[in-house]
Every structure is written in C-alpha cells, then in structure tokens.
C-alpha cells in the first residue's frame, strides 16, 4: 500500500481534488503478488479547467515523477474538470493486459 498511499497523498496535496480514485491494478498483470506497478487514477480538479489533456497528464506525471522512476510501470490517468465529471460520473476501465 506504500506507493498507493504516496500517490494519494501527493495528488491530494497538489490538486485539492473534488474526486480522487487510486486503483492498484497490478494484480491484473504478470507481476509478483502485492506488487505496486500498475495504477489507474481518476482525478477531478478545478485546476484542469483551461488545460488540454496533454497538459493535465504532464502535470500529474510531474507530481508523480518519483513513483514513475521507481517501480510504477503503468499509470492510467483519467483527469477531468468538475463540470466534465458531473456529466459523466465515471471513467473508462483499463484494457486487459497482454503480457508486456
């Protein structure tokens, strides 16, 4: 849970989210039990207004650079403004692993 907790703490601190989900999806992949290698994050924040998708992703990647450099192999990000989130209320699921 260490990395999941640190992802949650950093995102909470940096983005003051309206909504945040951090899912460890490592068990769906070809990695040892209890790994923290594959994450899916749903983050809804006011600061994404006026930001294109690429900028939103870059902002999150920057905050989580340390995790990405140390064991987090896949980070699926679903980043919305509060208005976008109130329209959709859910984020797409991750695709199935194909081994890579």
């Amino acid at each position, binding site marked *: 849970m260490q990395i999941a907790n640190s992802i949650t703490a950093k995102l909470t601190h940096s983005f003051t989210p309206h909504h945040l989900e951090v899912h460890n999806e490592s068990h769906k992949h070809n990695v040892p039990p209890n790994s923290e290698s594959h994450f899916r994050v749903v983050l809804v924040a006011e600061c994404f207004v006026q930001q294109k998708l690429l900028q939103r992703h870059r902002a999150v*990647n920057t905050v989580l*650079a340390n995790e990405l450099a140390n064991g987090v192999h896949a980070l699926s990000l679903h980043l919305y403004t509060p208005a976008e989130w109130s329209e959709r209320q859910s984020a797409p699921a991750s*695709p*199935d692993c*194909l081994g*890579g």
Partner: protein
Amino acid sequence: MDAEASVEDQIRQQIRNNPVLLYMKGSPDAPQCGFSAQAVQVLVACNRPFSYVDVLSHPEVRASLPGIASWPTFPQLWVEGELVGGSDIIVEMYQNGELQPMIEAASEDADEGD
C-alpha cells in the same frame, strides 16, 4: 557522434518523417500490452495509414524516448511532429471526436508533400 546522440537523432528523424507515428509495445498485428492494443484499435478506426515503432524490439528507443518526450510511458502517439499523448488521451480524443480530424489533416498534408 556518441551512441546516445545518434539514438536521439534517429528518434527525431522518425518523428519528423512520419506524420502519424505510434511508439508501441509489439506491432499493430500483435500488440504486447493492453494500452498499446487500445491505441492501435483507435488509430485503425480512424481509417488512415500510420507508422509505428516497436519499442520492445528497439530497447534503445524505449530507453531514450521518455526523456526526449518528457513522457514516461508507452504507447506514445506523435502527429506532425507533436506528442498527442498515450492511450488514455488517444481514446478520450477519439470519443470526443477530436482525434479523427487531426489524423485526417495529418495524412492529407503528407499526401500533398509527396
């Protein structure tokens, strides 16, 4: 020229010369990662030709591109020399209807350049 500089030159040349370019794990016919498979599926749905580089067969590209792109993961879609994003962004833009016109414009520009 040292080896690292030549890999970077090679990558920059790929990005310059291919209007729609996907860096992925595996090939479009046999993707080796779910996220790469999803990116291919969306590009195929756009119905325009695209180029790809398999980063599993080119470990030097896999090692160097994240630094060059300031983007940590694969796949990466590049259109007309600009990073569009990874599979989450590609899928989202396809669903919003933003991706198809971008890909169509890029392949039309490429045709005119021939």
